[in-house]
């Protein structure tokens, strides 16, 4: 059935309002869209890493989650999901569970790229039937914007601040999507919030309904960490894809498909200019940082295009 935003938005919310996430935060948007991708007749168990999302969506005695939900710790969400999936398998075999359950895991970039990387890799390798959503806001936001391995080069974070001797983070980010692809996952997709959410929804649905360990990584702006006005969130997402900083693509059984080709590839400085974390890059004498950022994005984009042919 063709995607229809109006129809999607008329579904009952499975991530309820009243949570404590900031205005303009991408995490809540990710959760609503993720849950819309679960068929209404199906149930879900959400396994959540310690994160802004966890402390904001399940603060005792309230929960924003209409489905079953478990949080254990920061670094072990994939292992918890593996346990839930194993439970589902054996309980189905022993006739102890009714209905169709989908196992979803969700963590930020800290809980996915860094501290949760081992348990993610283990669960991917073992082939559990679950979908991992990484809401990637490119730093440890829950503790106050410390750098992560997802933080882009030149971003000012509280542990890589800009200063007279510093132009922000020194390293480019880890390419986690490629690392997950290398695990042989049957479906891996990179998305963000764009227009009518067709790209997000299609990928999330495909991931959830593909058997095996699947992975969706969502560029998920953070108004506090990236330092932008809340209403600029859609604009920042659009610029991330039109500058090719965050290309939209999917990898199905190892085959790459570009799902969005910018009509006109924009310069990266248009994305950077809207965010306080790159402010220092625009100071006289730091022009080279923007050039270096452009060069890196161009190189990665060419590599991706080569894979998509």
């Amino acid at each position: 059935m063709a995607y229809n935003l109006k129809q999607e938005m008329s579904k009952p919310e499975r991530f309820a309002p009243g949570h404590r996430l900031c205005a303009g935060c991408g995490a809540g948007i990710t959760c609503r869209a993720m849950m819309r991708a679960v068929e209404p007749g199906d149930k879900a168990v959400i396994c959540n890493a310690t994160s802004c999302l966890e402390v904001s969506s399940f603060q005792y005695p309230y929960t924003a989650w209409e489905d079953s939900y478990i949080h254990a710790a920061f670094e072990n969400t994939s292992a918890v999901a593996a346990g839930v999936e194993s439970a589902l398998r054996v309980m189905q075999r022993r006739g102890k569970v009714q209905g169709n359950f989908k196992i979803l895991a969700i963590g930020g970039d800290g809980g996915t790229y860094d501290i949760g990387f081992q348990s993610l890799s283990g669960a991917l390798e073992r082939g559990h039937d679950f979908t991992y959503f990484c809401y990637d806001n490119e730093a440890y936001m829950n503790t106050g914007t410390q750098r992560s391995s997802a933080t882009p080069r030149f971003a000012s974070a509280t542990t890589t601040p800009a200063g007279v001797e510093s132009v922000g983070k020194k390293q480019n980010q880890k390419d986690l999507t490629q690392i997950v692809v290398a695990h042989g996952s049957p479906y891996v997709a990179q998305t963000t919030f764009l227009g009518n959410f067709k790209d997000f929804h299609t990928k999330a649905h495909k991931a959830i309904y593909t058997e095996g360990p699947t992975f969706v990584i969502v560029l998920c702006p953070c108004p506090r960490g990236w330092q932008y006005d809340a209403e600029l969130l859609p604009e920042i997402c659009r610029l991330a894809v039109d500058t090719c900083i965050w290309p939209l693509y999917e990898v199905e059984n190892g085959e790459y498909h570009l799902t969005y080709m910018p009509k006109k590839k924009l310069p990266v400085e248009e994305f950077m200019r809207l965010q306080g974390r790159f402010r220092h890059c625009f100071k006289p004498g730091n022009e080279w940082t923007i050039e270096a950022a452009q060069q890196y994005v161009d190189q990665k984009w060419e590599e991706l295009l080569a894979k998509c042919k």
Partner: protein
Amino acid sequence: MSIRDRLSGNEAIATAMRQINPDVFAMFPITPSTEIPQYFAQYVADGKVDTEFICVESEHSSLSACIGAEAAGCRAITATSSAGLSFMNEVLYVAASSRLPIVLAVACRALTGPININHDYSDSMAERDSGFIQIYAENNQEAYDNYLQAHRIGETPDVRLPVMICEDGFITSHALENIELERDEDVRAFVGEYHPEHYLLKSENPLAVGPYGTSPYYMEARVAQAEAMKNAKRAILEVAADFERTFGRKYGLFEEYRMEDAEIALVLMGSSAGTAKAAVDELREQGVQAGLIKIRVFRPFPAEELAEALKHCKAVAVLDKSEGFSACGGPLFAETAAACINLDRRPKMVDIVYGLGGRDFTVDQAKRVFARLGRIVETGEIGPVYTHMGQRDLREEAQ
């Protein structure tokens, strides 16, 4: 009808697991507990169980997977030792505070460093405040019997806490001993099915586990957990009584050996009790009123019962098989001394740390400890309260 066999502690525990046929077993190997999942893997391969057996990439993940599985509505188990238990540390607390009655078999082994694979209790003692129930075995039979009781204890509705079933690494885990096994059908009838009230995969009613608990709620959760641990003492005794009715072997919170009229006594745990009992028997033949208490349940700690059992003694030596680095004694001493604090007439009490990293413990050593207790009674002088036993004097050797 019991079946006589000859098994190591690890195989005895694995046999109990096979008989129970749990839903999920998440494993990661570490010496000396590794054989437990190895035996179990063979049971899976041979179709003797239909457990979901997952080989995860670390102990942190094995317990995390158990947390997911148990919350989802399953009986989930794992096994570990030493550094593996330490690596689980954070998630032990999560399992306990989420009130998930996971059963964790621990073949107790020294912690690094230096790295050492042999027995002491530095691993399990480091986790004594994690919120797990801890039950210790003297030998293979007790390890098996304790395991058969573990699920029922943990799953008791007003308890709902995870359980560590501890055996002594190598000494118990690897040594073959005669053992009485129970028939599979009798074990299954005794352990029963697990029917949790709330679980993640209950389709008619979703569940949320692991909230952010702010100051207005955190303390209530912790107090509820503390109450559950108090309730565990009753549950352990109830399950032990049913175990005795069913299988004929009797268990309590601790074992009193020749304590009726004992003036001097040891308090200790695990396989050392067998050695120390031989010393007690020899001394009794010489007319010395010696006895010992072997702690079976360390969490919940049987403080009142222990004080009652020790109150008529004149001097007591606690034998600690782990070094707590408190500079004033090991953890068993701290608990035993605290248990006796409100007695009107307290025995004099010393702590002896021994047997670290697999250092042998002998009947002669036990007799020397009793001799020291005799001198304390005779002179009224305690002497040094906290000492070590069995270590060489390296300075002397160098000379």
